[in-house]
């Protein structure tokens, strides 16, 4: 661009945003994979339901193992013959003779939920579940898209018409509506989520595969491979599909973002995988009941979700612009 003093602003900000997005994505992926090892506590551990209920982020507490069970107290202080601490807005005093073990320190980095479970652990496992479901669903979608897109592009006009009208049909029912139909007919499970989310997200990707193959199929590459005696499927797998990997990767990343949002919406409605599965949407649902008392229960899972979606989209957009830069002519 030569006119004016301004360079086209399309590329420069998005490139740095893309780098930040990719870095954030790597961090989130690591956190999700490492959740079982780095979570401070099991995500469904309820040591003291009443005492640990709705502790705000950065709460320091102590666990007192008394004969009547574990009591979690804050503001622990030494008294002449035992310990005193705050529990349920009251001062609780435990004498040394009732306490076989010394108090154990607990840090609730991101607070606790309405059942006294550690939110840090739940968020880590929720991220793992939500991203995992979306990952499997998108993987399934990519497989379907490759099969349908290839059949439509290379199978002849009749196949093309039938399959692409099928794509149009599937796209005309909103994904969440289709999920509600399936949730009415089948019992909820993580498998149902993966299957339905996967079976409803491949349509756009199939169009990418079809369009890409139609462009490539007329090219010299295919003719050369066929002339060398390669079978059609081999030409497809070895010579044509690899060229579509970048476009498919961009498309899949954008679908991943949509799917992880949809999974959270479904779990927020209570139609996702049943407990003990922890989902970001499920955590948000538990925070709905205590909007006044525990803002962190809705704010934090949503923030995590928004960061995941934002980094996915900016990484994908940046990748897309790197592969296919907007023409500057």
């Amino acid at each position: 661009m030569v006119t004016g003093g301004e360079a086209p602003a399309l590329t420069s900000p998005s490139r740095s945003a893309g780098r930040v997005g990719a870095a954030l994505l790597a961090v989130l992926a690591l956190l999700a994979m490492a959740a079982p090892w780095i979570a401070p506590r099991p995500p469904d551990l309820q040591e003291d339901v009443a005492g640990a209920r709705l502790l705000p982020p950065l709460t320091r507490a102590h666990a007192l193992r008394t004969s009547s069970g574990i009591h979690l107290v804050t503001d622990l202080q030494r008294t002449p013959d035992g310990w005193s601490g705050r529990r349920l807005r009251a001062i609780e005093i435990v004498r040394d003779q009732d306490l076989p073990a010394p108090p154990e320190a607990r840090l609730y980095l991101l607070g606790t939920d309405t059942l006294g479970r550690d939110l840090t652990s739940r968020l880590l496992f929720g991220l793992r579940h939500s991203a995992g479901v979306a990952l499997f669903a998108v993987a399934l979608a990519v497989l379907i898209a490759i099969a349908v897109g290839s059949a439509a592009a290379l199978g002849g006009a009749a196949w093309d018409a039938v399959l692409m009208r099928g794509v149009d049909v599937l796209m005309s029912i909103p994904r969440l509506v289709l999920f509600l139909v399936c949730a009415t007919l089948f019992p909820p499970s993580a498998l149902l989520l993966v299957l339905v989310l996967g079976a409803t997200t491949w349509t756009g990707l199939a169009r990418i595969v079809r369009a890409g193959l139609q462009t490539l199929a007329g090219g010299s590459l295919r003719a050369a491979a066929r002339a060398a005696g390669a079978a059609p499927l081999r030409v497809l797998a070895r010579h044509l599909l690899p060229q579509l990997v970048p476009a498919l990767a961009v498309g899949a990343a954008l679908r991943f973002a949509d799917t992880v949002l949809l999974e959270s919406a479904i779990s927020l409605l209570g139609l996702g995988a049943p407990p003990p599965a922890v989902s970001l949407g499920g955590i948000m649902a538990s925070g709905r009941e205590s909007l006044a008392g525990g803002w962190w229960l809705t704010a934090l899972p949503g923030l995590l979700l928004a960061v995941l979606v934002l980094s996915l989209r900016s990484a994908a957009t940046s990748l897309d612009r790197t592969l296919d830069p907007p023409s500057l002519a």
Partner: protein
Amino acid sequence: MRPFLLRRVLAAAPLLLGSLTLLFLLLQLVPGRPFASEAGAGVSPAAAERLRQVSGSDRPVAARYLAWVGGVIGGDLGYSWSERRPVADAVRDAAARTLLLAGTAIALQFALGFGLGLLAAAAGRRLDRLLTAAAGILYSVPSFWLGLLLVGSFSVRLGWLPVSQLHSPDAAAWPAGPRFLDAARHLVLPCLALALPGAGGIALFVRDEVRAALSEGLARAARSRGLGRGRMVLRHGAGRALLAVSVLFGLAIPGLLGGSIVIESLFAWPGMGRLAYQGTLARDEPLVLGCAAVAALLVIAGSLVADLLAAAVDPRVRESLW
């Protein structure tokens, strides 16, 4: 224009038939016979047989398929077990309220997105970056999260706006003025939650479209003749962006209908989304299937409208679509 209209409407009919077929096929995937229950408690075999007869589920597949498609086309969506009235009645009442919410949201979404996009395109480098980043973040915010945050701050903490429902409980007795105001106050939060994230996406799209239009020869020539930046954006960019947005309009409807399921459920807005959700919880097959059929109808009609809009603005579209 007339032949284009005819062709486009004719193309929409098989799409609707396809959606109805897909929904019917899903129903056939369910294992077991309807009303069959384990021996002992539950429905007796004789009662189950009678229920199958009454509901028509003992008829052959082809007959049921024809009855389903014919019913939907004739406006008969079956009988809702949980609502205890015909599905068509329940959906009709709810669809009007969904159209109110989703219609307001779509208008707000496009107005806001278009304005923000034009502003970013006309702005200098720094403001452009700021607006683009803001739009990108807005676009990534889950609408249901935004809804919860809005309720948490404006309803629970500040107490400015109502948490849920369409009206205040006693609004029916009020005069028209306050009643309208009351309804508008109930509309604000769900509408914002539904509209804002999409507005961010539209803003990004419009900004890129306008920038692309401005880098073309015509606009560069105009600029070299001394046309100001703001006028350039309006004269050369806005028209092209409007064209592109008319295509987005059709694509936005499925997302908006899907999103309204969550938002309506969160805000207890008695629309179609909430109806379908409650039907799901009650495992009310006719109700959910009926809502899905109407949703498909709305999506197809919406994309039809979008195509007609695009054709009205742009003669090339009229020619290009077979």
